[in-house]
């Protein structure tokens, strides 16, 4: 009883100061509120996600987003700066995989990753998922598939009417991104655009390209 009376007598500001000092000292003891080293992974959830393939984005979906000017996602190029400068998908940002967790990405953003093939983006996907990033997606097939399907779509001579119609659309998309649609006749490959300049099969005609976004077709790993 005596003690309570004594406390009541003390000025409110003194009490508040005492509380603040107590909490401050506790903070000093705790020292570091963050715990970045330990990561909790719900392995089951991740496995289900991988199985359901909900984390994939196709190249045509991505091309569609870019053409429509969607901006609710961030497109991340995981390749080296040199490769990025050589060619990158429009609207992408270059964050090499080693810098991925340096704090440029926020946990709630919709993130689409791509690399040369698909392996690096899958590995980066796992890193981000482990760090509790919510919406992380991978570009299926990566840069290679972007080259094959978007920049240099091909039409074989024995294509059906349906395939030809699809090729028309693909050609328009390809030209939008500065690529070149190709028509394969037998063993020869011609360009569907003007100045047909037959070049060997499966070889992107870099020489005849109209400048713009020409690129070397690389067939290397991730």
């Amino acid at each position, binding site marked *: 009883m005596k003690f309570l009376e004594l406390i009541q007598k003390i000025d409110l*500001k003194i009490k508040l*100061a005492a509380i*603040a*000092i107590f*909490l*401050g*000292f506790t*903070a*000093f*003891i*705790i*020292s*570091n*509120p*963050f715990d970045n080293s330990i990561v909790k992974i719900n392995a089951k959830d991740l496995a289900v996600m991988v199985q359901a393939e909900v984390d994939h984005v196709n190249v045509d979906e991505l091309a569609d987003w870019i053409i429509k000017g969607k901006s609710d996602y961030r497109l991340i190029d995981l390749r080296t700066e040199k490769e990025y400068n050589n060619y990158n998908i429009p609207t992408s940002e270059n964050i090499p995989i080693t810098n991925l967790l340096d*704090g440029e990405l*926020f*946990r*709630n953003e919709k993130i689409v990753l791509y690399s040369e093939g698909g392996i690096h983006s899958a590995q980066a996907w796992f890193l981000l998922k482990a760090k509790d990033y919510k919406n992380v997606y991978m570009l299926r097939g990566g840069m290679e598939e972007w080259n094959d399907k978007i920049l240099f779509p091909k039409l074989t001579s024995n294509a059906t009417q349906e395939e030809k119609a699809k090729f028309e659309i693909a050609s328009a998309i390809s030209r939008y991104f500065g690529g070149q649609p190709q028509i394969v006749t037998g063993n020869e490959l011609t360009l569907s655009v003007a100045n047909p300049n037959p070049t060997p099969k499966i070889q992107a005609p870099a020489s005849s390209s109209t400048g713009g976004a020409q690129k070397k077709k690389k067939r290397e790993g991730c």
Partner: protein
Amino acid sequence: MNAPFFKFDMFSADFSLVIAFAIGIGFGFALERGGFGNARILASQFYFTDMRVLKVMFSAIVTAMLGVFFFVAFGWLDLSLVYYTDTNLIPQVVGGLILGVGFVVGGYCPGTSCVSAATGRIDGVIYLLGVIAGIFVFGEIFPLIEGFYYSSNMGRVFLPDYLGLSYGMIVFLVVLMAVGAFAAAEWGERKMAIKKSGGVK
């Protein structure tokens, strides 16, 4: 500072404006109740006769700092979702001095001028018009000062990293500093009051 909940997509951008409105009204109400809608009270801070501004600022800093520290420690708050501006040392020092001069001359800072205008004070309304004119001028001359505006960029700097101390240590030091400043302010106010009344208690 952007609220972390917004980034979790818990509510839409439109609804965040409603929340901002509610918080803003609460903030303004607290300022008005604290006497911050009155230019005389605010300006007396600079003559050390009324240390209210310093006390309110330090109370707010200590409360928010302790709150954030323990929320993070308990895992309730994810600091990586909170937005911080970069440190551009020289432009920010210059900007702070300009704001300070305006504060002494006009008797308000931008936030308190809104409070003052809202309660119908004419000087507050005029100050607010000046703020808007300043924003307009700044926007128009921005291309000329853009280089300076982004100069001496240090990235996101935090005191604990910069000084090489732990977060808890900084928190403790700031609390001690605030309590010390409080005590000094109260002592100073008593001294000034005595001086004003001609040495008679």
